[in-house]
């Protein structure tokens, strides 16, 4: 197996992009990544495209075939990867395996989603199609609903408070306000969304005990990256190569009801353990993390399940400032899904693009983790039933 490096990355600002088609967005992000790697007028051997909903939302399938043509990368191999909200990291995994095996040398991975052209009802319904079609979906349960069920159990078991959840939202929206790629660039305060009488209006219940500001926005957006063997990185690009030091992927029961302890995100734990083992690192070695905070509770729960904090300690760590820039382990310095946005097929790729910028030390100082050498991402599919964890390392082995 060959070591694999990320040698180019690209992203477009997330948000509402009425003027762009799904393939437009994927193409723009891909061109940024190709140019960043220095491959602007060259081809790649293969293209993997992460997309969850083109077939439902745009009535467009075979998105990878469309993108490879749009980018004039023919006759490169092209595959679309659909794995729910974990499609992005799944596509990167496929690219990494293809390069590591020696089958392909240069691979473009792009991920994106166009979700804002349908109503909120339709977008909520689209994401809910990942629930069990017989025993969950007919009842109208949504992903926010599952997160609400999970949050109440977490509160009952660990004493998690709304103040802890609100602290995640405030932290991530503050970072999003500094990120030109973020969908949400609005500062919020605890008074405005929790303490004052107006908070009932400002921050209505969404899926009790979760409220509006506990959730990520519904976004359009795309991100892309270029992979090659680490040994070829120097001849292909001037960028500092970022080693894919390890990844892990694990699954859990499709339905929440069949989990012995629904507060135990087993797939997160297992995916992280695999990634740490492969990278020969431990949680305390990680300098910066991008966790899948589709809901504030998930940042807290994932920070515990990957091993940054003990179970039940993640919320207290947020309140103590341990997860902010300059803290023990800065989490979602990009603003996370909460502020950058969550175009579902694009998120897993965007997390790795943000980590690459961190590890190349290219961000402005108000968002740069000083001297960051290692980064970890969690891309959370379903409600924790298909999870990928990546560990990146600056400058090779």
């Amino acid at each position, binding site marked *: 197996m060959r070591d694999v490096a990320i040698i180019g990355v690209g992203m477009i600002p997330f948000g509402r992009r009425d003027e762009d088609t799904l393939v437009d967005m994927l193409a723009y992000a891909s061109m940024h990544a190709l140019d960043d790697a220095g491959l602007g007028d060259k081809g790649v051997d293969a293209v993997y495209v992460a997309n969850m909903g083109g077939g439902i939302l745009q009535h467009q399938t075979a998105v990878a075939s469309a993108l490879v043509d749009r980018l004039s990368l023919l006759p490169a191999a092209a595959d679309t990867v659909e794995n729910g909200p974990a499609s992005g990291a799944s596509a990167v995994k496929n690219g990494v395996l293809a390069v590591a095996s020696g089958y392909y040398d240069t691979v473009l991975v792009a991920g994106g989603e166009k979700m804002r052209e349908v109503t909120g009802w339709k977008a909520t319904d689209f994401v809910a199609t990942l629930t069990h079609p017989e025993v969950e979906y007919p009842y109208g349960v949504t992903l926010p609903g599952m997160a609400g069920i999970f949050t109440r159990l977490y509160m009952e078991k660990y004493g998690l408070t709304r103040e802890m959840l609100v602290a995640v939202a405030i932290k991530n929206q503050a970072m999003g306000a500094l990120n030109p790629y973020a969908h949400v660039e609005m500062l919020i305060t605890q008074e405005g969304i929790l303490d004052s009488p107006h908070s009932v209006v400002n921050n209505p219940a*969404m899926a009790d005990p979760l409220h509006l500001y506990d959730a990520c926005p519904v976004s359009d957006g795309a991100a892309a990256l270029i992979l090659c063997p680490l040994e070829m990185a120097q001849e292909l690009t001037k960028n500092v190569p970022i080693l894919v030091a390890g990844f892990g992927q694990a699954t859990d029961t499709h339905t929440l009801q069949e989990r012995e302890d629904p507060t135990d995100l087993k797939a997160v734990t297992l995916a992280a353990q695999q990634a740490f083992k492969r990278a020969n690192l431990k949680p305390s070695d990680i300098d910066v993390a991008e966790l899948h905070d589709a809901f504030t509770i998930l940042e807290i729960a994932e920070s515990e399940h990957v091993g940054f904090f003990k179970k039940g300690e993640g919320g207290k760590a947020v309140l103590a400032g341990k997860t902010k820039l300059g803290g023990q382990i800065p989490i979602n310095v990009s603003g996370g899904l909460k502020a950058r946005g969550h175009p579902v097929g694009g998120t897993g790729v965007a997390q790795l693009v943000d980590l690459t910028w961190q590890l190349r030390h290219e961000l402005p100082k108000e968002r740069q983790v000083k001297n960051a050498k290692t980064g970890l991402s969690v891309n959370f599919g379903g409600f924790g039933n298909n999870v990928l964890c990546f560990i990146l390392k600056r400058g090779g082995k």
Partner: protein
Amino acid sequence: MNEIKITAYKCKKCGHIHYPKHERCLKCKGREFEELKPEGNVKLLAYTQQFNLPWGFDERFLIIGIAQFENGIKALGQIKAESLEGIKTGMVLKPSWEPVRYVYGEPVYGLKFEPL
């Protein structure tokens, strides 16, 4: 009362109860199952009041819960209540089989739970 039309599957080897169906037991990989029908009332294990509903629902909110029947089957359903007042983890509810949504005017039946 309408019959509750769900079928669970009890592994003949280890006794683990599955709902929905699996081809192999989640615990022991056994392939033989005894069909199990829900019995008695349910105990509420987890719940939420959901306000942002998907396409196809006209209600202002849904209260969704996961509950366990007296013979061990766990299932998700809608809770018949006007608010979360009085709803608590561990409470006993009465199950029924009723329309849970309508698709093009046709009812889709499923589990509902009602506080006793």
